[in-house]
Each structure stands twice: as structure tokens, then as C-alpha cells.
């Protein structure tokens, strides 16, 4: 019977060495809420598990020159409890907070959600919309890439065998900026997104959008950025015409499949619906209107 080794290194170098030297399949472990489930079902059979949680800095949130840096293994519950993050990035926080239940929140991470590379991952459209970057470490050293370069297909990432994500960086926030995330699920919780949408905007003092990023989940092999949808917002207030253009751009970008979670026709329509609803929340927040959480 093949063995399974587990290591919990206490430094980046040690972790990279373990990954580089592994024979067979090595998997990085953050919260384990995807990995352990996949191992139990027999879908993934790793020979080595490298747990990142003991590496200094992997768990925690800090501020650096006006931007937030989130350790890759920081659990959802910790992010949700961080007042600064909630104020600056309510969309990222609410997206991460949608993952699973209270129990899952104690473990699940942004890194795991991104690197599991599911097109339906909830925090990923919000991270894409936020313009977040991932700091990746590996045998060749350290590199910082936009998050949208990490997932490349269902279950696949651009990371090398000896690489892992160390932390995420969110850009500094200008005035009148905010974000939002909504997903559609047939139930009210504990479900997987049929469509997800994250939008981040900055407005001028008249409420006109100056910059925008729009991302959709569960409508393509990976989460996708939708520049046309962002373009529909920039230069406009959120009037009926803008909403209609946003809806159309989101629908046009949606290239989903028919599967047990939804039909193509339905997913395309809902992509447009969510884009409108999410934009409304993000605009409200950017103008200082108080909004509840997405769920």
C-alpha cells in the first residue's frame, strides 16, 4: 500500500525544498476543506502533504503602505473579523464569508479557493475584481502576479511543482471605492454557485464611475474578468441604460456549460441579473450608503 507523508515546515525554504524533492504527487495544504474532501472521495491521492500553516506570516493580515496583505493560509473567519478589511473590501470579505458554514470558515482560505481552481469558487471573482495580486514563492525565488493568472482551467493552476502562494496583496483604495459579490444558488446556503459575480468600482464625487473591474464565476472554465462589462460602467452613473449595457456585456461574456447545476440559457441570463444587482450594491457602498452582507 502506498504511503502518505505529511510535513508542516516552519520556513518557506523548507517548504519549497520538500515540494521540489517530492517523488510522486505533492499537495500544498492550507485549510484542507477542498483537499481532504477530495482525498476522502479518492479523487486525489497525494504522496506528500505540505501544510503551510506553521510558516511564519502565512496566517494573518497586515497593512503595508495603505494596502492590505493577507497571509495565504488565513482562515475566512479571521478575515471576516477584520474591521479594516471589511471597510475597504466588503466584497472580498462577503465572498470569502459565503464559503461553507461556520465550521468551514474556521479553516477555508483565499489561497485554497483560488488554487483549487474551481470556476465556481466564491472568493475568486471578488479577488479578480479587486485587482489582487498573489505573491508566489518557489525554487526560482519570489514573484508577484495578478490573481487572474493563477487558475488556468478547472482544477489547474499556473504554479510550478515547487511553488506555492505566500500571500495576497490588495491595492490601496482611493476615496469613493467599494466592491460587492453575489452568487446565485438554488438554496439559501451550503451550495455551489450557479453564477457568481464580483464588481469593484471607484466613483467621482458626482457618482460617475471612474474605474471598474467586473468578474464572473461559474460561466467559463475559470473565473473570468469581463472588461466589456467594466467598460459599460466607466464614465457613467448607474442609470437604466448603463445597467442594461452591463447586463448585456455580462451575458455576452458568459460561456457556461449545461450541467447538473444549471443550463446554459439560465446561467447566461442570471449572469446579467447578478451583474446589475452587484453593481448597484458596489455603487451604493462607494457612495457611503450602508448595505448588509450578501447573505
Amino acid at each position, binding site marked *: *500500500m502506498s504511503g502518505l507523508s505529511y510535513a508542516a515546515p516552519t520556513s518557506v525554504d523548507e517548504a519549497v525544498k520538500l515540494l521540489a524533492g517530492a517523488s510522486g504527487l505533492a499537495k500544498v495544504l492550507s485549510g484542507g476543506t477542498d483537499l481532504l474532501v477530495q482525498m476522502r472521495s479518492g479523487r486525489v491521492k497525494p504522496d506528500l502533504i505540505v501544510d503551510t500553516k506553521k510558516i511564519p506570516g502565512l496566517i494573518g493580515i497586515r497593512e503595508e503602505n495603505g494596502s492590505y496583505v493577507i497571509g495565504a493560509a488565513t482562515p475566512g473567519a479571521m478575515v471576516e473579523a477584520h474591521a479594516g478589511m471589511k471597510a475597504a473590501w466588503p466584497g472580498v470579505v462577503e465572498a470569502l464569508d459565503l464559503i461553507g458554514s461556520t465550521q468551514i470558515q474556521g479553516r477555508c482560505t483565499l489561497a485554497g479557493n483560488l488554487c483549487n481552481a474551481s470556476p465556481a469558487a466564491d472568493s475568486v471573482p471578488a479577488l479578480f475584481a479587486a485587482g489582487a495580486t498573489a505573491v508566489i514563492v518557489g525554487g526560482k525565488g519570489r514573484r508577484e502576479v495578478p490573481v487572474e493568472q493563477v487558475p488556468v482551467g478547472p482544477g489547474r493552476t499556473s504554479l510550478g511543482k515547487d511553488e506555492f502562494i505566500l500571500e495576497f496583496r490588495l491595492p490601496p483604495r482611493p476615496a469613493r471605492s467599494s466592491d460587492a459579490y453575489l452568487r*446565485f444558488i*438554488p*438554496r*439559501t*446556503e*451550503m*451550495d*455551489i454557485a*450557479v453564477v457568481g459575480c464580483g464588481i469593484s468600482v471607484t466613483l467621482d464625487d458626482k457618482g460617475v464611475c471612474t474605474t471598474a473591474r467586473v468578474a464572473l464565476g461559474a460561466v467559463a472554465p475559470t473565473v473570468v474578468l469581463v472588461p466589456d462589462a467594466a467598460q459599460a460602467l466607466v464614465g457613467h452613473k448607474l442609470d437604466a441604460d448603463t445597467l442594461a449595457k452591463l447586463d448585456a456585456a455580462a451575458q455576452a461574456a458568459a460561456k457556461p456549460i449545461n450541467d*447538473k*447545476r*444549471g*443550463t446554459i*440559457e*439560465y446561467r447566461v*441570463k*442570471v449572469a446579467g*441579473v447578478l451583474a446589475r444587482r452587484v453593481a448597484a450594491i458596489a455603487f451604493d457602498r462607494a457612495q457611503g450608503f450602508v448595505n448588509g452582507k450578501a447573505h
Partner: protein
Amino acid sequence: MNYIDTSLKVVGTRPIRPDGVDKVTGRAVFAADTRAAGMLWGKVLRSPHAHARIVSIDTSKAEALAGVHAVVTAADFPEIVSEEAFVGEGPMNFRDLSMNCMARGKALYEGHALAAVAATTQEIADRALALIDVQYDVLPHVIDVEAAMADDAPVLHDDLFTAGVDPAPTKPSNVAKVVTFRKGDAEAGFAEADVIVEGRYTTQPVHQAYIEPHACMATYAPDGQVSIHSSSQGHFMVRAYTAKLLGLNLSNIRVNPAEIGGGFGGKTLVYLEPVAVALSRKCGRTVKMQMTREEVFRASGPTSGAAMEIKIGAKKDGTIVAAKQILKYQAGAFPGSPIGPGCMCGFAMYDLPNVDVVGYDVVSNRPKVAAYRAPGAPITSFAVECALDDLALKLDLDPLTLREKNAAKNGTKTHYGPTHHNIGFTAVLDAVKAHPHWKSPVKEGQGRGLACGFWFNIGGESSAQVHVNEDGTVTAATGSPDIGGSRASIGMMVAEVLGVPPTTVRTIVADTASIGFTFLTGGSRVTFATGMAATQAAEKVVEDLKRRAAQTWEIPVEAVEWKDGKAYPAGSNAGAFEPLDLATLALKSPRTGGPIIAEVSVNAQGAGPGFGAHICDVSVDRETGQVTIERYTAVQDVGKAIHPSYVEGQIQGGAAQGIGWALNEEYIYNDKGQMENPGFLDYRVPVASDVPMIEAVLVEVPNPRHPFGARGVGEVPIIPPMAAIGNAIRRAAGVRMHDLPMSPPKLRAALDAASG
């Protein structure tokens, strides 16, 4: 004795559930919690094909694997002749059950058991399964009920000839039987009608989704004695099926009932127990088996999905003059859908002069259906109650008024034969009318639906013992597994009769060797039938206690009265004696005849039918097609609520399961006939936040055939929800949803179609 009009001290109160502490602290022993020294793990190899001839099964490599102690296939089970079984709930044939537990000749659905192994660890068992070489001849398959009825459909059973048609067919088909129920002349009735509504409805098979997967542990000892620990709705049922499937004597099998983590009808038959015994018989070791959730979905029975046509004709004033229904129920891989009750229940609530119902029992390549709360009734009622709503809309009549006009009353003769007596349907409708929910205006943007439901409830064979312990406390033992709080209600009835507090009565579920035969927990029968046996046993104890007091006082037994847990002289003429309480009498028992105990077995008749009506308010998100249940009220005639909290719990649970059935639950098959959603992520039962507070309104029209007036309550509440929600959607959003589940994509598509 009958206590219906007496003043009650215990029955009708809400004491703490006797099995509650064990359950919330995790101490309760479920079947999966059992362990034994030297125990092996049994696992099942299942067919990946929906329909295939089994050319060969080579188990030699698996047998040779170190740690494997036994491998069984159908060859290790006796071939049984076709014989109707009256052991479980609903129709079953022993031969079919044998072939369902272990495929013989053909695999009839994906997940069908082909072989099983017993090994020292689960990992070795898994590896052994992978070493079994099965050669298949894959056959065309059929999943859908109407496709299975088509002339050119792949036929599952060469020896299945449609029963109930004349002349008898000469060609086998997937239609196991046709049943018809006729009253009056439907065609003549329709000719008289001012308005007619028609519709075609479909429902999906839905799983009971009990939280505990099937599990058991079995030992076949060298002397042929078999012991089984398992979770089921009836340990006598497990004993009967296991004996028959393995050719054993009942007296050689002892089944211990484990705590059960939900059944809802789905544990009224066996899957694992005969297999575990067969494995143990082969290797002489104890074998434990437990299904995964995936196995539960792929291999255990949901209730039927169906295709239905309905037509109802009425006069302008709402008087229904004719009703017609065609029902096609999926049976799964073997005959035996609940088509009979399906044909009876839909129209049973109404006083209809002309009725014509035809039902088809149809096999296809999916797991054999099992009972699920009020088997068959929720399906037919979805069509009937939606059609009635359409009729109300067409006539511009209030939907409650329409039901009141046509409601069955005492003396109404049903279309399937019996005449209703002592029923409470009009009392239920009165309670709806008086309820604040019904009287409140419908909120802006919402819609309100009303639907009703009927279930027979059953009685049958039950045994109960009442022991007075040496200190005067009481043990009540029955043969009924406790699924819905029956330990509490049985103990309360015994306490009421004995005149003692319910906390001094401990109710237990005794194993098959320790109590008389008891039919399984199903058909909402336990509080009625086992409750009747326990009440009578307690009465016998009271008689005995009175005799003992009379003996002590040396007065005639007629001069002794039993009150509030004590024997009193019946009047001043009887003599002046200090009353004797239970503890004193128990202490004296060695001198008054020995242990104080009574056992009563009954075959209870006269289970009163149950009626319910549900009111549901929904809002519809027209852009996503999502339905939100805003308010839900379930009114039901419960006869007498012995423990009102558990009655309310039954009603809330049934309604919650109905909400899942209505909105999201379905089996998704790929083109190979394999289920794509065998887990709770994609088989969407409602989560807590999907379900609003369900207000249960208890109407009590006593059932005179039960000592306290009880009727079964567990099944009625799952009947109305699908139509109540469908009717609410119709009124909120203007579209009639004919197909379950009324999921967001379907509703959005219907809304788009309606807006052109």
C-alpha cells in the same frame, strides 16, 4: 377502556423526551456505532451500468488477497420462488428483494449489488472489490417512466407480463400492472359539467434523505444462531426478510434494534443485513457493513417519480361532477410502486359522484422504490390539488370554498370502496378559515396557495409489556422502533393509565427475542396500534394491582378503586384502609403473587384516517426564478395529540421534506443511466434557512377506535406542500408549474415563456 372524554393528566402534556439526552450528547448507539471483537468490514461491489447482463463474476483474485475472509455473490444465496411478501410497507416480492440485495443474471440499475467482500479493514475490502472481475454484456437502458412504457423500450424482466389487463398480454413489458378504480360514470359527469380543467403533471423520484446511511453488524455463529444489530423501521421485518432470503428459521435469528437516524419509509426493507449474514456464514466472523451516502443514493429506494394526467369537471357553483386521473408511477427496477394508494388518495378527500382512475406500475433502470411518508399520496395530490386551484381560478371561487363545497364527510363513499367514518376534514377546513394566516391579506408581491392531503393510516400487529419494578417504577417495552418520539408517547399513555408521572415510566424497544411480534414502524401506526397494546397492558396491570390490594385488605376486588397511582377502597362500605401506592404494592408483590407484569398483543383495527390542509405564502424572484417561502401554516386533524410537541415535529418535518420535493430535489441521470448527483451538495434537500417557521395547527377530532382518540400523524403533512407551493407560485407569478421540482431554471423559463 376509552379515555376520550375523561380528564387527562399526562396525555396532552409536553414532558422531556426520554431518549433526548442520549441523542443530543451523542451517546445514543446507532447501527454504525456498533463494534465487536474480531469484526470484519463488509463492502459491496456495485454495477456501473444501468442495465447489463452479467456474463461472469470472477472473485478468485479478491479471495486470494491477504485480509479477505469471504466473498459472496448471488450464488451464495438460495434462489427463491416468486412470492408476495407482507413484511414491509408496500408491495414487495421475496424473489425481487433477493435479487435487489444481490443481482442475479442481470444488473438492473447503476448501483445494483453484484458481490460483497468481508475483510479485516475497509481499505483491504476496497482493494478486494477492485480485484473482482465482472464481465458484462451492456444492454440498452430506460430511465423515464413513459419511455419505459413505450413498445420499443428495453425490457427489464423477460417474465414480467402486465397484470390487470384482459386479455392477459403474451409479450413481456415494463408495465407490471394496471389498476382501475371507477365510481359512477365519469363521461356522463363531464357531459354535465359547466367547466372542465385539465392538466399533465410530472413529479421526480425523491429520496427520504434520512441522515443515517444504512448500517448493520451480523454474526453467524457455528451453531447456526444469527445475531444482527441494525437500524431499521422494524427489527421483526429485518428478521423475516433475512430468514427468507437465506433459508433460515426465525427462531435462529435475533435482531437487535439500533437507534435509528431517520427512515421515513426508506428503512422498511433490507439491503445489507442478508449480505452481512451471508458473509459471516462463510467466514465465521462478525461482519459490519455501512453504506456511504453515495451508495444510499445509488442503491436504496426513493419514492416514485410519475407522469399524470388529470381532468376535473364542475358546475358553475363549484360542485364537482366528474374527475378523472391517469397515473404512471415508476417502480424502479422491480415491480411495486405505491400506485394503489396513489389511485386512492388524490380524490379521497372529496365527495365525488363520478370518478375514473387508472394507474400503471412501471419498472425502469433505477433503484427499486421504497416507501416514503404516505407512499403514493403526495404525487397524485400534487396533480389533484393544482387542478382544483385551476378550477377555483376558472370559476372565480375562493380555493377554500371550493374544497368546503366538495369535502368528504362522515358517510361519504370513496371511489375505491370504503365509506368515511369519524373523519375531521371539515373541521380542518374550518380551522383554516379561522386561522390568522388565512384571514390576513396576501402581502404585496406574494402569492398564497392552499392544498389538502389525505392518508389512511394503519393499525396492525403490536406487542407491549408493562413491568412494575420492585420499587414501583415502571418499564414499558414494545417492539416498535422509535422514529418519531414513540417512546415518549407510549410511556405517557402507560403513565396516564397507571396514574403515575411519566418520568417514572421508562420505555424501551425490545429485540425480536424479547417481545411478541410487532409489525414495523410505518403507516403512522405506532402511537395508534402499539399505543393501544401498551394501554391495554397498563390496564391489565391496574387490574392486577387492584386484585393485590383487595387481597391485602381482604375485601372483594370490585370494592377497590385505582386513582392517581394508588389503590383506594371504593367507598366507605368497602372499609377504611390507607391507600396503597405503586411502590408499596411492588414491595409487597412477593406475597401477593409475584412480579407485576402484563403483556398484550393486538391486531389493531380502526386507524382513523388523517386530513391536512396547508397554507403557504411565497414570493418569486422573477429574474432568477427563485421561490422564497414567506409563511407556512399546516393544519391537521391528529385525533388526539398524545405529546403535542412531537406531533408538531412530525408536521413540521413532513412539510419541510415537501418543500424540498417541491422546489429542488431530483435525480439527475447522464445518458448512460448513471446518477450524477449522489450527494447532498447537488441533491438539494432544504437547508435550515430555506424553511420558514412552520406553524403546526392541531385539530383534534378523536378517533373512537383508539383509547385516547389518536390518529396517525406522520404521513399526512408531506402530502400538501408540493401543490400548496405550486398554487402559491401560480398566484404570485401567474404561471402554473406542472413539473417538479419547481427549480429556479424551470421557473425562470416558464416566466420567460409566459411573457412571450
